[in-house]
């Protein structure tokens, strides 16, 4: 906050492709009883048409908040937006009237959440909850709607889909519930799917299946995916381009391959090094020492300075500029790895 940064201009983006969704300089925060704090600072990223873009970072860095803000799902108060735009298909979502926003949610942008166990309404049948989407956005007869729902459930690899429609969430496992969430999000054939850590709460084999499923569906349906995760493995699997967030800021953006081969920001490097690799012996992960500064005690300089192995005096005093390496990579760091 010490000085104005020119981050949006120097943003590297997924090349040539026209962005479907772009966050531009989004700064927002929360007002709580103890005072207000900034949760996202000048966050910019874009998702091009038909591609999968990853958003990674440790817990609490603002990944979910950034998409919730974009979808206007955060109640205000406590959330407030200070500046920025969320442009989707040429329109700023933050300026839409609620009624227009409603036509985008679930219709042009589908969303799946971190918590499959609690994201479905326990008192309504799966069928009701799925048909509801179609009732809102499409005018279909009940029978046609049911057919579409069973088709979509089948596509997500759910057996006996017609029976599932009659079931209730508590009768299903977490993996199944997440598949149903995916099916529900895709019912209207959205242009963009926001997948907020879709596999975090699931066990490993189910994780792999869900990721594979998303990949297939993307190719089938020609949609864009914004994949939020704190797992770089997921990124390596499925993303073309990646944004790395740290303590409410985007600190690096690069093509997925580049992120792994030549990470520029020390934080990105730290993330990559702390990944468990099965090939290596059971030497425990190298974790990044220190803690993420809370939203209420961010330093004047770089947020990562305290934990950084390359930290200098400048890092403590001044916020780093976003530096564009080439169109494939940009880093916000005073001393990036070459």
């Amino acid at each position, binding site marked *: 906050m010490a000085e104005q940064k020119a981050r949006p201009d120097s943003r590297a983006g997924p090349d040539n492709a026209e962005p479907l969704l772009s966050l531009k300089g989004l700064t927002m925060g929360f007002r709580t009883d103890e005072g207000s704090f900034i949760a996202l600072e000048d966050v910019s990223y874009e998702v091009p048409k038909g591609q999968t873009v990853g958003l990674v970072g440790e817990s609490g860095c603002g990944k979910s908040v950034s998409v919730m803000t974009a979808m206007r*799902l955060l109640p205000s108060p406590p959330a407030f937006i200070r500046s920025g735009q969320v442009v989707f298909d040429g329109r700023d979502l933050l300026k839409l009237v609620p009624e227009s926003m*409603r036509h985008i949610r*679930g219709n042009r942008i589908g969303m799946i959440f971190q918590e499959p166990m*609690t994201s479905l309404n326990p*008192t309504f049948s799966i069928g009701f909850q799925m048909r509801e989407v179609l009732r*809102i956005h499409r005018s279909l007869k009940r029978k046609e709607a049911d057919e579409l729902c069973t088709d979509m459930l089948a596509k997500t690899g759910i057996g006996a889909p017609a029976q599932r429609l009659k079931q209730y969430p508590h009768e299903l496992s977490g993996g199944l519930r997440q598949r149903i969430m995916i099916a529900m999000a895709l019912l209207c054939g959205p242009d963009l799917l926001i997948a907020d850590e879709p596999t975090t709460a699931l066990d490993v084999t189910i994780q792999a299946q869900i990721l594979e499923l998303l990949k297939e569906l993307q190719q089938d349906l020609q949609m864009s995916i914004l994949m939020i995760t704190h797992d770089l493995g997921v990124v390596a699997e499925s993303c073309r381009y990646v944004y790395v967030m740290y303590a409410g800021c985007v600190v690096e953006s690069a093509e997925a391959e580049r992120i792994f081969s030549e990470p520029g920001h020390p934080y990105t490097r730290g993330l990559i090094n702390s990944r468990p690799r099965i090939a290596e012996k059971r030497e425990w992960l190298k974790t990044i020492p220190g803690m993420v500064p809370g939203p209420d005690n961010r330093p004047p300089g770089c947020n990562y300075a305290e934990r950084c192995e390359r930290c200098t005096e400048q890092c403590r005093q001044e916020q780093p500029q976003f530096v564009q390496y080439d169109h494939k990579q940009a880093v916000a760091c005073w001393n990036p790895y070459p």
Partner: protein
Amino acid sequence: MFLFLAKRFGASGLIVIGITFITFLLSYFIPADPVRMLAGRSATQETVESIRHQLGLDQPLPVQYLKYLGRLVQGDLGRSYKQKTQVAELIASRMPATLKLLVGAIFFEVLFGIPAGIFAASRRGRKADNLAMIASFVGVSAPQFVVGLLLLWVFAYKMALYPLGGYGGLSHLILPAVTLGITGGGWYSRMMRSSMVDVLQQDYIRTARAKGVRESAVVLVHGLRNAVLPVIAMIGMDIGFFMSWTVVVESVYGWPGIGQLTWQSIQVIDTPVIMGVTLVAALAIVIGNFMADLIMPLIDPRLRVR
């Protein structure tokens, strides 16, 4: 489902037996000698003893209890000391008035309380929320006789819209029912609000919004179905409560319900009537809860198993 019903029914049966035991004991804790009440002050020791024997009060407690149970099974609640009629008849004669008032009161409680609670929860922390909660606080803390007299004065006396008390049809029922609705509705709005506030923070509410569900439907469809359960339980409790505790409103409006009967019999320590009314009220609570238990699984499928 059948097993569930059977279990519930069995549990209710046990509770009822427990209650009969308590009402039976009640007659020993009430500080009045029923024999003296019957025989009068000037009766000789002999008369007293013979009445005691007639009533079976000289037999051991367990025997007395079993006899009491035996009479209950036949619908015999004993005979009022004062009015010299069967307690069962006395209660039955008051039952229509009490049931009318009960239905009316719950209707208005729900009518006032639930919308206010939903409204407040969906505008949590804003002015409308504060206003609704102040209103509910006033409703909860206002004494029933004040509200009753006020309504009576405004709507019956000044505006002459309703009769000035007494028992009768709908026009007689409305003011006493509204009085109970105002004073009880405050509890409903609080319960509804806190339950709804809790539900509106759940993940599935966010999912509903992300699907493009209209905000009104988010609250009234997705929210309400989850938030209404504690309110249903509360209605179940109220069925029992209103069976015996509407005495203030009954007095203000001259409504001949069980509440007044209770009050009168407490004043003259008419033990059989007190026992009978207590038993009926307790039974009503059991029935009310039983009904709530039956309805809740219809709303929440998770309650259908077990």
